[in-house]
């Protein structure tokens, strides 16, 4: 037995290798469709609505050239569109490398639960793909030709990723954030809203979801304040402007804390915002550099203005949108107990929300050009 042991081991190794290698393999990477973005459109036809899912895939016609090709597919549900797409594509489909998913407004208002479920159960999914909602047809945005990238999805990826620098935007617009926010208690999904303005893809506002359906689109000037109240550790510019010649702008970051109390069954929320930044433009007060009292005056004025604008937004939110855009329900659930049955939208819309803003100037830059020494 021992004499043949080497023979037996080698033969069994070869047998095991062939057994395993005969499993239906995958094609290597160059024979696979790598799509950079997916768009979801709705075709309202009776009796059942149909989805139009388009994928923008990379094509390599010549050795050093990269271009893209759009693969459109129509089906009654999302998995059926996959079968439809394989009838026109020359390669296998790979799901995990997308940069962005574009939902059209129609799809978002109809409810994105089926799409979320499909993404959740798929193992190849890349959890850091961006989610955006677009105006009109999503496929137009996917087909849009951009100058600085191969496909529009690359451009949108860069757009959303670099948007955190201004407007108090955060990076919580990915697929994994979508899983956590849709359907969890006290949480609410908000994604960027894109449209094509002046032949450029523009981030024109934020889309607000209630559970899994989109209920409102907030333009960027208002959405800035929503982001300010909603996100922690974000950056943006707050401007105090009296008229076209007198303004002070400060660029800084925001820290947000929420306290909530329950008095006689009615909820009361206190949002404390601390805004610290650098004065980037100052044409109003000429003596910032020598007089700290002026700075104090300015900060008070800015605080009042910000609180006013925030309260305007909160009013609108409570009366017009009727959704808890600021995720206050989460803090309340953490303080007072969790119950999946509670309707936090209702409670927050009827609650008392107070905003306290504290502004601090910590940097004046290199100097103040319009400084006048009295």
């Amino acid at each position, binding site marked *: 037995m021992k004499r043949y042991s080497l023979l037996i081991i080698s033969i069994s190794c070869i047998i095991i*290798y062939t057994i*395993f*290698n005969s499993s239906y*393999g*995958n094609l*290597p*990477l*160059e024979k*696979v469709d*790598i799509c950079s973005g997916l768009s979801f459109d709705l075709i309202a036809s009776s009796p059942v609505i149909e989805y139009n899912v388009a994928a923008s895939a*990379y094509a*390599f016609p010549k*050795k*050093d050239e*990269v271009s893209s090709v759009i693969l459109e597919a129509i089906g009654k549900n999302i998995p059926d569109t996959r079968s439809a797409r394989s009838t026109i594509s020359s390669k296998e489909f*790979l*799901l*995990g*490398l997308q*940069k962005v998913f574009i939902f059209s407004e129609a799809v978002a208002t109809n409810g994105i639960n089926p799409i979320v479920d499909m993404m959740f159960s798929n193992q*190849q*999914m*890349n959890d850091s793909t961006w989610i955006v909602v677009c105006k009109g047809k999503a496929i137009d945005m996917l087909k849009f030709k951009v100058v600085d990238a*191969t496909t529009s999805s690359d451009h949108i990826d860069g757009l959303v990723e670099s948007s955190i620098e201004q407007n108090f935007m955060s990076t919580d617009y990915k697929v994994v954030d979508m899983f956590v926010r849709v359907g969890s208690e006290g949480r609410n999904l908000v994604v960027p809203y894109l449209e094509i303005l002046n032949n450029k893809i523009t981030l024109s506002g934020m889309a607000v979801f209630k559970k899994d359906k989109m209920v409102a689109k907030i333009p960027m000037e208002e959405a800035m304040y929503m982001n300010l109240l909603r996100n922690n550790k974000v950056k943006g510019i707050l401007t105090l402007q009296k008229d076209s010649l007198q303004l002070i702008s400060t660029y800084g970051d925001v820290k947000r804390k929420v306290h909530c109390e329950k008095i006689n069954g009615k909820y009361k929320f206190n949002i404390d915002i601390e805004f610290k930044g650098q004065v980037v433009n100052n044409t109003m007060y000429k003596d910032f550099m020598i007089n700290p009292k002026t700075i104090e005056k300015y900060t008070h004025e800015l605080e009042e203005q910000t609180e006013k604008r925030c309260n305007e937004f909160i009013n609108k939110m409570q009366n017009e949108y009727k959704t808890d855009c600021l995720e206050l329900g989460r803090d309340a659930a953490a303080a007072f107990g969790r119950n999946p049955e509670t309707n936090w939208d209702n409670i927050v819309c009827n609650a008392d929300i107070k905003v306290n803003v504290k502004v601090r100037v910590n940097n004046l830059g290199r100097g103040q050009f319009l400084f006048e020494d009295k």
Partner: protein
Amino acid sequence: MKIEAIDSKINTIINALGSSTPIKVKKISLGKDPSIQGAIIYIDGLVDKNIINRDILNPLMIGISNSIVLNSDTSNFLCSTYITADCTIIKDNTMDVYKNIKNGNTLLLIENIEDYIIIDTTGGVIRQVSDPLNETSLRGSRDGFVENLEVNISLLRRQIKDSNLCIEKLVVGRRSQTDLAIVYIKDLVNTEALDDLRERINAVDVDSVTGIGSFQEFIDENPYSIFPMCMSTERPDRVTPSIMEGRIAVILNGSPFVLTLPSVFVEFFHTVEDYNERTISVNIIRFLRFLSVLLVITLPSVYLTLIKYNGELIPVEFVVPVVQSRIGISLSPFMEILILEILMEILREGGLRLPSKIAQTLSIVGGIIIGNAAVQSNMVSPTTLLVIGITIIASFAVPTVDMSISIRMLRFPMLFLANSMGIMGIATGYTLLIIHLSSLENFGVPYMAFNKDDLKDSFTRAPLWKMNSRPSIISDRNKKRQTNFRDKFRRRKNE
């Protein structure tokens, strides 16, 4: 006193040594009035003729002015009065006599006296102690072992002056009768390993033992394993610390490599530099070495898995360049990697023994031109070439040659496993590797086991003045080798 003429004695000796051996016989007459016949017998080429002329022939032929008395004390008298070289007297043991002659000593025969006088005249040309070619070091000593057993032992003795140093001499090989020496420190050594070793050496029953490599294989406990069991080195400053830790050194006459056993896995990744440089630099370099071991084994398999099975795990920024580079490649990824690997191994094997001028041409032709041509003819993709190139470079970082070959060979089974099973293959390969390494033992010492105290000098090296105890895995005796002497430094405290 047996009366025997000098000629018959000479003939007996010549017959016993073998008639075709180049034996030289010189008949001399000792003393004057009457002169006594004597003869010296030696083997040409093994002796130092200067000693024979100066210390034996000169005093005996010229220096004896009166006659010698032939009695039982003659040999002693001659040895202590006239022969100025070192001599021993052997009474009956002819086997010893023949052995001594074959080792380069001279035999002095005197007629009618039964004693054999052996005079130490070993000489002959041997290589000078020089720079070890295969293991260079920046700050260590430049001594290297040579082929002669006595010189090697002297190199070790100069560095260890402990009185407990034991040197045992054995003989292996029926026909070659090669000398072997075992060197160890008596109160530190692992006694079971020592007994085991002696048993095995005495059991070796072969015709000849020519090199240390074949000897290593004869006493190896796991001959089918890919990993080397004993560390062989050319430098005395690697053997000396090993002996100090409780290991045994085996020196074979005729081979400039010395074995130290028992050895453990991490030892093969240590170099002499590690103990001659500063602590932090050494730790960074050791980390680099272990990182390169991991790279060599896994990088081609990981690359194959990512391309073939799990495309979604490639970083998004790399995908487009990688796919672009693979458009139009005629071979499948597995064949591509395999062919490139085999080509590199052929290149390396070919360049090993060439004279240095041709080796340079080989590296240029092979590495650059063939690699470039393979890419341009669309046989392989540039990314694959890059990955294989990184693997080859990483494989140079393993310091010991034996271990370097083993690590390089490991990547082939790993490649096959990754090709058939993807990530599962890589994990299975690692599991089997770990299980195999954990089950290896040599001379009772496990190959890959870590006691808590030993970690001071395994993957990283603690400062030398902190390594207070010997590695307990080798030998359990006499643990402490240094004390916390730094506490005694007097320092001025800044107030």
